[in-house]
């Protein structure tokens, strides 16, 4: 398995580094990944979202600042950064100010376990998948902090919804992801099937061919039910439409974001967009074969797939209405939970019979 450090070492023409240098290179790699992700998320994603949504509604959207309006997000960010940090009276200051940082940090840390293709992966522990999911689940905690400390009833309702939603969809998220683990063990022939690089490695070969055209062994083909379940769970876990209840623009003003402005708002907003990207990256790694694809280098394929996921999320935004809280919880507890466990058992059962 080629790691990030090996790639760098190869680039410099040396055989491995000393532990100290390895650490420095890892930090440098991490900052590169984070900066690239931030640039993509901060600039292109918001711009893309606006343009893409505008297409659905026959609008033009941003086209004034910079070429095709590309500079509108930097301009917006600059404006928001230059604003005074207003802390409303009576808020619980420590969690109020800590929440935005924690939100951004926790979701960016989750990217460490994502194999971006071309060996670009910051950390690849044996339990990578569990780590990634755990960091993703952490994103609910800053929202609770933000909502509870804001001393605003809309924020309060927003965080209540977030808690209910996070609890209801946490288990389906993990269990639907776990349904691929037996497959990893089989296809990659490994005893560390939770390692993210192994998950991607298991999806490299062809599954079968139709008239000479090979269908890749992506788990979306091998495990389509789990893919759909994970997709729904990701939408709910990261509060995207139609499950965007914690923010619920028309009901709760801006939910837990209501009392935030300036740089704190930027961080929370960024965390939210990073979460969509993380969802996309997770889905790509687990079900779309990671960076596998012909001709282009792996990380281009990976980013491309992530962007497709992102655009699908935005497509939902334009076309489906928000569900109600009881409908959301019904779906989570009554259907998704049972289906994910059933799928996991079925997968294990089939493999037990076959092997």
């Amino acid at each position, binding site marked *: 398995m080629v790691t990030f450090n090996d790639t760098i070492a190869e680039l410099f023409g040396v055989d491995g580094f000393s532990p100290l240098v390895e650490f420095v290179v890892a930090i440098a790699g991490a900052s590169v990944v984070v900066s690239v992700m931030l640039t993509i998320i901060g600039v292109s994603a918001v711009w893309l979202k606006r343009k893409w949504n505008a297409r*659905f509604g026959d609008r033009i959207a941003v086209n004034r600042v910079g070429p095709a309006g590309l500079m509108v997000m930097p301009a917006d960010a600059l404006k928001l950064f230059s604003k005074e940090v207003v802390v409303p009276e009576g808020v619980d200051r420590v969690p109020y100010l800590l929440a935005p940082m924690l939100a951004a940090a926790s979701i960016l840390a989750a990217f460490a376990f994502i194999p971006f293709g071309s060996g670009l992966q910051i950390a690849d522990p044996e339990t990578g998948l569990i780590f990634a999911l755990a960091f993703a689940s952490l994103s609910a905690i800053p929202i609770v902090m933000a909502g509870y400390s804001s001393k605003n009833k809309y924020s309060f309702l927003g965080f209540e919804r977030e808690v209910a939603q996070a609890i209801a969809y946490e288990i389906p998220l993990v269990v639907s992801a776990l349904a691929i683990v037996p497959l990893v063990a089989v296809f990659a022939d490994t005893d560390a099937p939770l390692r993210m690089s192994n998950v991607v490695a298991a999806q490299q070969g062809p599954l079968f061919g139709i008239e000479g055209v090979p269908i890749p062994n992506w788990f979306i083909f091998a495990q389509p039910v789990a893919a759909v379940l994970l997709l729904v769970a990701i939408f709910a876990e990261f509060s995207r439409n139609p499950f965007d209840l914690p923010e619920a*623009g028309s*009901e709760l003003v801006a939910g837990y974001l209501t009392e935030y402005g300036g740089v704190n708002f930027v961080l929370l907003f960024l965390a939210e967009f990073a979460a969509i990207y993380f969802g996309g990256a997770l889905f790509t790694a687990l079900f779309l074969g990671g960076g596998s694809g012909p001709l282009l280098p792996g990380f281009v394929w990976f980013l491309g797939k992530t962007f497709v996921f992102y655009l699908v999320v935005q497509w939902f935004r334009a076309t489906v*209405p928000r569900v*109600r809280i009881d*409908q959301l919880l019904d779906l989570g507890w009554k259907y998704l939970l049972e289906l994910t466990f059933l799928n996991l058992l079925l997968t294990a059962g089939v493999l037990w019979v076959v092997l």
Partner: protein
Amino acid sequence: MSVVTRRHEEIHETIEDKLPEAILDFEEHQNAPAVVANPSRVDDVVRVLKQNGYNHLSSISAVEYDNRYESVYHLRRITDDREDFDEINVVAPADPDEPAVETVSDVFKGANWHEREAYDLMGIRYDNHPDLRRILLPETWKGHPLREEYDVDQPQYTTLEAHANPIEERYEVEEEGTLDTMFLNIGPHHPATHGVLHLKTVLDGEVVVDVDPDIGYLHRCEEYLCERLDYKYQIMPYPDRWDYVSAGMLNEMSYARCIEDLAEIEVPEYAQVIRTLAQELSRMAAHMLAVGTFALDLYGELNVIFMYAFKDREILQEILEDLSGQRLMFNYFRLGGVAYDLPEPRDEWFEKIRGFLDDLPEKLDEYRALIEGNELLRKRAEGTGILEPEVAKEYGCTGPVLRGSGIGYDVREVDPYSYYDELDWDVVTYDGCDNLSRVLVRIGEVEQSARIVEQCLDILEDWDGDREIQSRVPRSITPPAETENYTAVEGAKGELGIHIVSDGTEKPHRFKIRSPCFSNLAVFSELVEGEYLADMIATLGSLDLVFGEVDR
């Protein structure tokens, strides 16, 4: 003797039989006969009328005279048979020093808000009223602005402290541990209130336990303004400002109809057709907006339904701009006709409308597919915000809100005006009684409006007679003294009525606006108590309220 006149005689006899001491006199108003009732027994009179089929209380209007106050009730009979429609008024004269009238809110629940408004603006006390607070003005207001004695120049300051703190009284937990509620102020500035509505909401978790709409943030005392302007030119710009989202033509018609009836002004046929055309274009634009904003309330994002609806409304807006020179505040109608003839070149304008009408069926199919075909949207809009037909009648709901509950009451049909009688169209009803039905009614009405517009276009294109856009109207219009008239038109939101009392001068003595949104909002708390917060917002959207009209 017509059916209606015979019925009125019967009613007279019935009331005189049953309540001899409650009746003081019988009067004749321009629109219908009036029963003058003893103010302390007026509830009995209204109850007897309700039992005799007058099941719709349009409005309650308070009028001040030199020697008395009057509380005037406009009742209508709504049945499935259009021939059966008729009206009757009840007048309750009250003491000039201490005006007090018995409440009718136990007969018609919708009277509750109307009486509060009469109390607020004219200072008539309604005895036994369950909740006689001010409704449009702040609770600290001094005096009643529609009274003759009211000093307009006296400034009124309301400090923040003087306002009752809504949280203090409502946050009580009734019994420790049984009811754990949260008080939430929604609005006056909130993305879903479509203007300035303040909902004092009590939530139990996500469920709405109690909601009290607080209105009046956009109150401009339009009635007072109109009473100080002359009939002929000065009042006409104001109706545009009631329901200000492209329903201006319909509002102008409401005023034009009332005063033309009262002053007996003829309108040439050519102008009637143009008026009808303008009204229906206006209605289509208003309904487009209603459908779009309802979707906005459900999605909370700039979604496709909203954007498509706005795009289509824009075309109508341009057509209306060509006609009147204005996009929203049209000021296009004149007493006895309209201000201008159709824009030249006429063919080009006709072509523009025909182009829109040709595309419309396809667009409406798309709306229906987007709304009815969307499983999630159906899940949200079906079976929520249930308005039972009986409740709707009790509260005097009208327009698409009433027709969404399966009652086909449309003023254009039962009490025709303009050119509607000559044209071929249907009243759209759905009997789902829920949010979805109300929206589908609006889409259906756009379809019917398109039919009307098409027929008007045919007539106008083939018009070879005199293009007379205004009849000869005297320089100053002075309806006879001591006459009054209540007429209504079918506005975008429902029965938009005007009650004018003349004192023989060229300005109205009393100018009362019966706003459909006002009555539709009054029923709101009945619709949403026990529903989820999200459904409350959706219901608010489906009622299609415009606060320029609620608050006036």
